[in-house]
C-alpha cells in the first residue's frame, strides 16, 4: 500500500471512527448532563467535556488526514495510538446504561462521599451525643441535648420531646431554634381523648411523618401555628415495651420530606433518648421512691416517737403537704364508731370537721378495702353516691386508702384535691405507703396495749394463783382465794362458799371485806349463785343489792355489782367464788373472764388441798401401819413392842398420846406408852382395875370403845373423867390387844386426843388393823424373847462349861458353879451341898443371904435337897410362901427366898456327890429351859470336878516324877513316837547345854545337832555319843530304852546319858599324864642308860675325868628321876588327901637362900639368881614341903626362861603373912592359862616353844602343899615378860633356929 493509503486507512479512518465513538458517547451523556448540570462539580464537567472534545479532535484529525493524506510518522504507531485512544469510549459505550454513572456517578460519588462524610460526621456526632447523653442524668438536660442534636443532625428548626405516661403526653421540652418553647412544658394531652400526632406516634408505634402540618388532621392547629411548623416527624421513643416519649422534629418554613436517613437517624436518636429517658426516669423514679420512702420512714419514726394523736396529726400534715393536697384527714375506726383521728388542711382550706365522717370516699374505701382514687368527683358520682357534698367542700379529686393491718381495718387516710386529675401513681403509692406505716404503728400500739393489759391480768392471775396454790391446808387456801380475788379484780369484797354435796348446801368458808361472822353460814344455791352454777361460768349481777332474788343478807345488801363464779372440777361444782363491788359498772367482761380463770385456779387449789388432806390422812395411817409392820419385821423385846404399838396407834389415828395396858394378875399395868404426860402415866402405873366400866368392855369383851367426849361419857369412871378434864384430853379410843398367852383379860391400847374427835369408820378400820397387828407383834415379840432367853442360856452355859472345863481345882469348880448358877437362871442365890456320909453340907454359896448357911448340915432325908439326892432328879418349887414344911426343910427358903430349884451333882462313876440349888426372892415359874440349863450346869460341874480331882492326882504324880528327874545326875530324854522330845530333864540341860524349852517338841537331832542314836528297834546297850556343846565336843555314855504301847508299836524312846567327857578328859589327862610322865622319866633315863652304856663300851677308853663326868650325870639324872617320882607320889597323896604336914616356925629367909644356892651350883643356862630376903621372915609351915615348893617354883622359873635372865626369889614378912615370891624373866604365861596352871597335868604350853619336861604336876603340888599349910599361892605374869609366883604363909613367931634346921612342931 502506499503511504498515503496507509495514512488514510490506518490513520484517518480510525480517527474518524474515534471521533464517532466519542461523539456518540457524548450524545448519550448529553441528557443526563443537562439534567445534572447544576449539581455537577468542575471535575464532573471537565470529565463530561472530554468526550466531545476528543470526538471533535478526532474528527478534525480524520478529516484533515483525508484531505491531506500524509502519514503521521509511523502509521502503524499512529494506528496503535488511535486504537488506544478509542478504548475509553469503547469501554464507556459497552457499559451502556451506566452512562449516568459517569456523570452523576462522580457526582454521586461525591455526594456519597459527602454523605459518607456527612454520615461519618453524623455518626461521630451521634457517638458524641450518645456519650454525652449517657453522662447526662437529668431529664432536662437529656431533653435539651437530644433536641439540639435533632435539630442539628436532622436539620430541623423545631425539636420537641413529650413524655408519655399512662395515656397522657406531657410536654417535656421544645426547642425552636435555640430557644426553648416555654409553653411546651405545660402541654398535656390525653392521648385517648384527642387525636394527635403524638398520639398517633404512640399508638402506631412508628414514626409519623407529616409533610404538611397544616393539612394534617393530627396536629393541633394551634400548636402548629404557634410553632410555625410545616413538616415534621413524630417519633415514638420506646424502651422496647412501651412508648415513653415522643420526639418531634419539625421544620418551619417550607415543607420538606424526611427521608430514610433522617428517619433512621431520628430512630437512633429516639432509641438513645429512650434509654436516656428511661435511665433518668428510673433515676427519677428511684429518687422519688427514695424520697417517698424516706418520707414514710421519717413519718413512721416520728409516728413512733410521738404519742398517738400527735403522730396522726403529723401524718396527715406530711402527706397533705407532700402531695400538695388541699386536705388530708385520717378516719379511725369503722362504721358508727368512726372518728376523725386527725385532719390537716392547706392554708385557706376549711377543715371538714364533722362532715368528715360523712365523707363517702373513705366509706367506700373502707368497704372495698382498697385504695379509691377519684380523679373527678363529679364523674364518679355513682360510685360515691353523694358527690355534691364533696364538691361543696371544694374537693374535686379524692384519694382514700384504707389502713388495714392483719386484715383488720383501722381507718382510712383521705386526701382531697381541689382540682380534678388523675392521681399520680407516686402519690397513690405514697399514700398507701403512709397508710401501711400508719397501720403498722397503730396496730402495734394497739397490740402493745392489749398485751400489756393481758400481761397485767396474767400477772395478777399468776400471783393470785401462786398465793392460792402454795398452800395446802384447806382453810388457808380458801382464805387466800378470797383475798386474792379481791385484789385481782379490785373488788370491795369476796367470799367463798363450798358445796356440801351430801346435803346440797353451800357453806361459807372464807370471806374478805365482809364480816367474818358470815363464815359458816349455809345456804342453798339460788339466785345468781344458782345461775352461775348452772351455767358453769361467772355471772354478773348488776344492781345486786336491790334486784337480787332472793334478797341477800344485810352484809351483802350494800353491793351494787356482784359476780358469782363457780368453782368446778371436771364439771362437778365444788363451790362458788363471789366478788362484790359497791360501785356500779365496776365489772366488765374481762373481769368475768378473769374470775373464771381464777375459779379454775381455785378449783385446782381446792382439789390440791383436798388431796393433801386426804393424803395426809392416808399418810398418817400408812405410817401407823408401817410402824406396826416394822415392829412385826423386827423381833424386839416385849416392852419395846408395846411402846411401838402405842406409837403406831397414836400416829395412825392422829392422837395426842397413847398408852398400852397389859393384864398382870387382876390388874392392868402400864406396859407401853407414847408421849404420855406424867400425871396420866402416874395414874396408870398405880394400876387400873379391870373391873372399871369402859375398860372392862375393852379388855373383857374385846370391843373397841370410842369416846368423843370422855368427860361427858358416863361409861368411864369418874376418875377417868376427872383426868380427862385435868389433862385436857377430850376424846379417847380404846382398842383391845391380846396378850401373848391366853389370858382371861386382854390388854388395851388407849389413844387420847386433845381435841374433840368424831371417830369415823376409817378410824375404826385403822383400829381394827392395829389390833391384829399388835397381836402378831406381841406373839413375835414373845417368840423373840423366848429365843433370846434360850440363846442367852445356851451362851451362858457354854461359857460356864468352858470355864469349868478349864478349871482344875475342885474347890474352884464348885465356886464357879455356885457363882454361875444364879446368873444362868436369873435368880439371886445358889448353894452347893456336898454329900458327906449321910449328910448334906452346904459347901459353897452365892448371894449375901445364903452365905450364912455355909457349913450347915442337914440329913439326906430332908425335903428338897434330900429329895434331889434320893431321886437323882430335879426338884422345883415355884413359891414356897406359906408352905411351912418347905421352909423347915430348907432354911434358905426361910431367909426370904420364895422359889427353889435343885438339881443333882453327880460324882465319879455315877455316884451322887451333892446338890446344886438356886433360890429366887420372887416367886418364879421355873421354865423348862431354865431347869435344863441348871441340870446341864450341874453336869458340867460334875465332869469338871472329876477332871479336877484326876488332874490333882496326876499333877501330884507329875511333880514327883519331875523332882526325881530333876535330881538325877544322868540326862534323861524322852521322845514320842514321832521322835519329838517330850521330856528333857535338868541333867540333860546341863550336860548338853541345851535348855528344856529349846529341846521339847523338837527331835533330839534338831536340839543337839546330832542324833542320839541309830534309832533301831533293838538298841544296843551303852554307846558313846559325842554331842557339840558350845564349840566343844562332849562325850556322852548313852543308853536307850524303847517304850511300846499296848499294840506293840513304838510309842516312844527314853535316852539316859552321862557326860563322860570329864571322865574322858580325865582319862585323856591321865593318858597324857602317863605319856608325859613316861616322857619325863625317860629323859633322865636316857642319860642314865646312855652314860651307863657308854661307860660299858669296850671300844673306847675314857679318861678319868670323862668317867667322873659320866658318873656324875648318872647320879644327877637318877636324882632327877627320884624327884619326879616323888612329885608323882606327892600329887597322889594330895589327891588322896593323904599328905602329912607338920607345921613349925620356919625361917623362910634362910631356906630360900639355901635352895637358891643349890640351884646356883647346878646352874645351867646362864641364869642368875637374886635373893631378896626381908627382915627375918618366919612362917609357920612344913619345912620340907616348903623346900619342895621353892624348888619347884625355882625350877619352873628356870625352865620357863630359856633365854636366861635373872630369877629373883624374895621373902618378906607382911603383917600376919610371910610372902615368898619367885620371879623370872621368861616366857610368861598367857592370861587364859593362868587359871589352869595350878591344875593337875597342866603343863606349860607344849608345842609353842614351851619347855618340854615337867610332869604338869609341879604347880599342882605347889598349890596343894601351900594350901595344906594354910597359905595361898598365886601368879602374876605377862606373856613374854616373865612370871612371878607368890605364896603367902601365915607368919609365926620368930624362933631362932639355925638356918637349914627345921624344927618339927608338936
Amino acid at each position, binding site marked *: 500500500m502506499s503511504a498515503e493509503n496507509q495514512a488514510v486507512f490506518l490513520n484517518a479512518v480510525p480517527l474518524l471512527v474515534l471521533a464517532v465513538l466519542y461523539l456518540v458517547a457524548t450524545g448519550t451523556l448529553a441528557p443526563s448532563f443537562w439534567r445534572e448540570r447544576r449539581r455537577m462539580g468542575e471535575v464532573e464537567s471537565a470529565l463530561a467535556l472530554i468526550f466531545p472534545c476528543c470526538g471533535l479532535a478526532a474528527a478534525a484529525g480524520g478529516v484533515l488526514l483525508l484531505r491531506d493524506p500524509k502519514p503521521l510518522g509511523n502509521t502503524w504507531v499512529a494506528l496503535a495510538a488511535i486504537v488506544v485512544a478509542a478504548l475509553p469510549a469503547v469501554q464507556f459505550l459497552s457499559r451502556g446504561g451506566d452512562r449516568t454513572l459517569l456523570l452523576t456517578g462522580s457526582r454521586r460519588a461525591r455526594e456519597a462521599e459527602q454523605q459518607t462524610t456527612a454520615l461519618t460526621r453524623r455518626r461521630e456526632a451521634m457517638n458524641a451525643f450518645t456519650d454525652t447523653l449517657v453522662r447526662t442524668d437529668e431529664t432536662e438536660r437529656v431533653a435539651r441535648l437530644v433536641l439540639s442534636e435533632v435539630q442539628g443532625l436532622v436539620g430541623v428548626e423545631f425539636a420537641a420531646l413529650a413524655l408519655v405516661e399512662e395515656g397522657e403526653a406531657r410536654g417535656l421540652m421544645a426547642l425552636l431554634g435555640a430557644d426553648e418553647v416555654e409553653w411546651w412544658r405545660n402541654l398535656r394531652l390525653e392521648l385517648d381523648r384527642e387525636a394527635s400526632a403524638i398520639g398517633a406516634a404512640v399508638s402506631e408505634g412508628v414514626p409519623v411523618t407529616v409533610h404538611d402540618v397544616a393539612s394534617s388532621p393530627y396536629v393541633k392547629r394551634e400548636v402548629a401555628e404557634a410553632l410555625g411548623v410545616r413538616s415534621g416527624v413524630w417519633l415514638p421513643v420506646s424502651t422496647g415495651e412501651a412508648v415513653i416519649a415522643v420526639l418531634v422534629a419539625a421544620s418551619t418554613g417550607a415543607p420538606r420530606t424526611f427521608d430514610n436517613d433522617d428517619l433512621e437517624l431520628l430512630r437512633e436518636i429516639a432509641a438513645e433518648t429512650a434509654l436516656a429517658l428511661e435511665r433518668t426516669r428510673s433515676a427519677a423514679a428511684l429518687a422519688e421512691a427514695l424520697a417517698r420512702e424516706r418520707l414514710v420512714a421519717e413519718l413512721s419514726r416520728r409516728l413512733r416517737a410521738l404519742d398517738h394523736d400527735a403522730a396522726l396529726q403529723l401524718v396527715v400534715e406530711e402527706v397533705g403537704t407532700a402531695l400538695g393536697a388541699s386536705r388530708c384527714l385520717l378516719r379511725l375506726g369503722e362504721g358508727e364508731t368512726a372518728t376523725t383521728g386527725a385532719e390537716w388542711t392547706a392554708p385557706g382550706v376549711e377543715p371538714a370537721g364533722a362532715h368528715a365522717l360523712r365523707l363517702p370516699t373513705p366509706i367506700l374505701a373502707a368497704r372495698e378495702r382498697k385504695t379509691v382514687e377519684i380523679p373527678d368527683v363529679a364523674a364518679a358520682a355513682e360510685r360515691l353516691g353523694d358527690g355534691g357534698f364533696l364538691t361543696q367542700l371544694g374537693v374535686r379529686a379524692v384519694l382514700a386508702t384504707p389502713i388495714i393491718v392483719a386484715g383488720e381495718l383501722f381507718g382510712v387516710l383521705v386526701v382531697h384535691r381541689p382540682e380534678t386529675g388523675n392521681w399520680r401513681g407516686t402519690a397513690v403509692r405514697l399514700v398507701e405507703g403512709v397508710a401501711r406505716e400508719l397501720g403498722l404503728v397503730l396496730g402495734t400500739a394497739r397490740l402493745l396495749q392489749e398485751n400489756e393489759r393481758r400481761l397485767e391480768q396474767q400477772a395478777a392471775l399468776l400471783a393470785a394463783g401462786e398465793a392460792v396454790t402454795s398452800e395446802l391446808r384447806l382453810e388457808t387456801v380458801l382464805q387466800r382465794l378470797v383475798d386474792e380475788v379481791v385484789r385481782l379484780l379490785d373488788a370491795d369484797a369476796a367470799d367463798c362458799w363450798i358445796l356440801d354435796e351430801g346435803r346440797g348446801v353451800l357453806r361459807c368458808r372464807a370471806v374478805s371485806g365482809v364480816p367474818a361472822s358470815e363464815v359458816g353460814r349455809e345456804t342453798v344455791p339460788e339466785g345468781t349463785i344458782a345461775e352461775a352454777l348452772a351455767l358453769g361460768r361467772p355471772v354478773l349481777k348488776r344492781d345486786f343489792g336491790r334486784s337480787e332474788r332472793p334478797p341477800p343478807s344485810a352484809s351483802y345488801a350494800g353491793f351494787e355489782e356482784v359476780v358469782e363464779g363457780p368453782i368446778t372440777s371436771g364439771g362437778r361444782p365444788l363451790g362458788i367464788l363471789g366478788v362484790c363491788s359497791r360501785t356500779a359498772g365496776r365489772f366488765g367482761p374481762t373481769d368475768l373472764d378473769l374470775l373464771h380463770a381464777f375459779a379454775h385456779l381455785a378449783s385446782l387449789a381446792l382439789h390440791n388441798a383436798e388431796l393433801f388432806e386426804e393424803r395426809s390422812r392416808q399418810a398418817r395411817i400408812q405410817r401407823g401401819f408401817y410402824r406396826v409392820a416394822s415392829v412385826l419385821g423386827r423381833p424386839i423385846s416385849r416392852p419395846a413392842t408395846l411402846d411401838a404399838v402405842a406409837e403406831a396407834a397414836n400416829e395412825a389415828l392422829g392422837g395426842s398420846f397413847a398408852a398400852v395396858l397389859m393384864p398382870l394378875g387382876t390388874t392392868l399395868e402400864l406396859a407401853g406408852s407414847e408421849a404420855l404426860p406424867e400425871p396420866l402415866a402416874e395414874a396408870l402405873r398405880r394400876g387400873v382395875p379391870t373391873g372399871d366400866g369402859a375398860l372392862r368392855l375393852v379388855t373383857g369383851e374385846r370391843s373397841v370403845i370410842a369416846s368423843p367426849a370422855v368427860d361427858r361419857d358416863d361409861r368411864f369412871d369418874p376418875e377417868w373423867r376427872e383426868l380427862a378434864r385435868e389433862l385436857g384430853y377430850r376424846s379417847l379410843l380404846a382398842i383391845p390387844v391380846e396378850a401373848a398367852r391366853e389370858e382371861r383379860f386382854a390388854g388395851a391400847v388407849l389413844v387420847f386426843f386433845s381435841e374433840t374427835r368424831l371417830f369415823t369408820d376409817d378410824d375404826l378400820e385403822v383400829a381394827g388393823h392395829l389390833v391384829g397387828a399388835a397381836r402378831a407383834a406381841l406373839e413375835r415379840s414373845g417368840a423373840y424373847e423366848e429365843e433370846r432367853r434360850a440363846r442367852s442360856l445356851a451362851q451362858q452355859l457354854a461359857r460356864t462349861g468352858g470355864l469349868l472345863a478349864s478349871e482344875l481345882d475342885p474347890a474352884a469348880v464348885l465356886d464357879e458353879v455356885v457363882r454361875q448358877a444364879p446368873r444362868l437362871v436369873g435368880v439371886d442365890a445358889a448353894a452347893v451341898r456336898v454329900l458327906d456320909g449321910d449328910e448334906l453340907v452346904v459347901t459353897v454359896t452365892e448371894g449375901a443371904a445364903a452365905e450364912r448357911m455355909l457349913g450347915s448340915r442337914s440329913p439326906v432325908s430332908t425335903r428338897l435337897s434330900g429329895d434331889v439326892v434320893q431321886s437323882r432328879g430335879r426338884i422345883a418349887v415355884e413359891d414356897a410362901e406359906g408352905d411351912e414344911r418347905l421352909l423347915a426343910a430348907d432354911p434358905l427358903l426361910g431367909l426370904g427366898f420364895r422359889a427353889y430349884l435343885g438339881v443333882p451333882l453327880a460324882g465319879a462313876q455315877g455316884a451322887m456327890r451333892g446338890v446344886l440349888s438356886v433360890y429366887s426372892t420372887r416367886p418364879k415359874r421355873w421354865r423348862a429351859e431354865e431347869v435344863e440349863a441348871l441340870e446341864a450346869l450341874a453336869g458340867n460341874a460334875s465332869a469338871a470336878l472329876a477332871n479336877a480331882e484326876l488332874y490333882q492326882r496326876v499333877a501330884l504324880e507329875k511333880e514327883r516324877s519331875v523332882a526325881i528327874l530333876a535330881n538325877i545326875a544322868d540326862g534323861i530324854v524322852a521322845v514320842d513316837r514321832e521322835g519329838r522330845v517330850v521330856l528333857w530333864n535338868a541333867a540333860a540341860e546341863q550336860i548338853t547345854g541345851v535348855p528344856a524349852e529349846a529341846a521339847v517338841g523338837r527331835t533330839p537331832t534338831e536340839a543337839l545337832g546330832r542324833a542320839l542314836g541309830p534309832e533301831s528297834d533293838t538298841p544296843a546297850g551303852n554307846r558313846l555319843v559325842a554331842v557339840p556343846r558350845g564349840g566343844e565336843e562332849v562325850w556322852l555314855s548313852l543308853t536307850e530304852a524303847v517304850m511300846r504301847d499296848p499294840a506293840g508299836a513304838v510309842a516312844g524312846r527314853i535316852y539316859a546319858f552321862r557326860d563322860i567327857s570329864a571322865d574322858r578328859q580325865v582319862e585323856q589327862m591321865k593318858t597324857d599324864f602317863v605319856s608325859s610322865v613316861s616322857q619325863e622319866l625317860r629323859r633322865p*633315863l636316857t642319860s642314865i642308860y646312855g652314860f651307863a652304856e657308854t661307860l660299858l663300851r669296850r671300844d673306847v677308853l675314857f679318861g678319868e675325868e670323862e668317867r667322873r663326868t659320866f658318873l656324875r650325870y648318872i647320879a644327877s639324872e637318877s636324882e632327877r628321876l627320884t624327884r619326879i617320882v616323888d612329885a608323882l607320889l606327892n600329887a597322889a597323896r594330895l589327891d588322896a588327901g593323904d599328905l602329912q604336914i607338920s607345921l613349925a616356925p620356919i625361917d623362910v629367909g634362910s631356906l630360900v637362900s639355901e635352895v637358891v644356892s643349890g640351884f646356883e651350883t647346878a646352874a645351867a643356862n646362864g641364869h642368875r639368881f637374886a635373893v631378896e630376903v626381908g627382915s627375918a621372915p618366919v612362917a609357920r609351915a612344913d619345912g620340907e614341903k616348903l623346900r619342895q615348893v621353892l624348888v619347884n617354883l625355882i625350877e619352873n622359873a628356870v625352865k620357863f626362861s630359856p633365854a636366861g635372865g635373872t630369877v629373883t626369889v624374895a621373902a618378906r614378912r607382911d603383917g600376919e603373912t610371910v610372902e615368898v615370891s619367885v620371879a623370872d624373866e621368861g616366857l610368861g604365861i598367857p592370861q587364859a592359862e593362868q587359871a589352869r596352871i595350878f591344875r593337875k597335868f597342866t603343863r606349860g604350853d607344849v608345842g609353842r616353844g614351851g619347855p618340854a619336861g615337867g610332869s604338869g604336876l609341879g604347880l599342882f603340888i605347889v598349890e596343894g602343899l601351900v594350901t595344906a599349910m594354910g597359905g595361898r599361892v598365886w601368879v602374876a605374869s605377862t606373856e613374854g615378860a616373865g612370871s612371878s609366883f607368890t605364896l603367902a604363909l601365915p607368919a609365926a613367931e620368930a624362933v631362932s633356929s639355925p638356918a637349914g634346921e627345921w624344927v618339927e612342931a608338936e
Partner: protein
Amino acid sequence: MTRVLIIDDEAPIRLLCRVNLEAEGMEVLEAGDGYVGLEQARQDRPDLVLLDVMMPGLDGWAVAASLLADPRTATIPIIFLTARAEFRDRARGLDIGGVDYVTKPFNPLELAALVRSLLNRSDSRGRDDRRGEKLSALRASLGA
C-alpha cells in the same frame, strides 16, 4: 669325816651323843636350842642333824621345817630324838627319806649305826619335797 650336829636342850644328852659319836670317829657339833642349832646348821653344814623334839623356844618340828625350807640345809638328813613312845609306831610306815627318829632312852651305840645308815640312805640324790610334806603330815598326826 662325818659331821653331826646335835641340837638338844639337855646337856647330858648332848654329851652322851658327842662322846659316842666321836668314839665312832664323827665330828660332833652341838647346839643348846633351836635357833643356835639352825645357825650352826646353816654355817657348818653338818651331814646330819640330831634333833630333840621337845625343846623350849623353837621346838624340833620348827627347826626341821626351817631346815627344810632353807635350801642350804634342805638336804641334810635329820634324826629326831623323842621321848614319845608312840612315835615309833606311828611313823613306822612312813618312808620320808632323810628323816628318822630315835626314842629315848636309846642305846648310844646304836645311835651311831643309825646315823650311818641314814647317811647312806640319804646319799641318793633327788630328795624331793615329799619329805617336807611328810614331815608336816607327821607333825600333824602327832598332834602338836
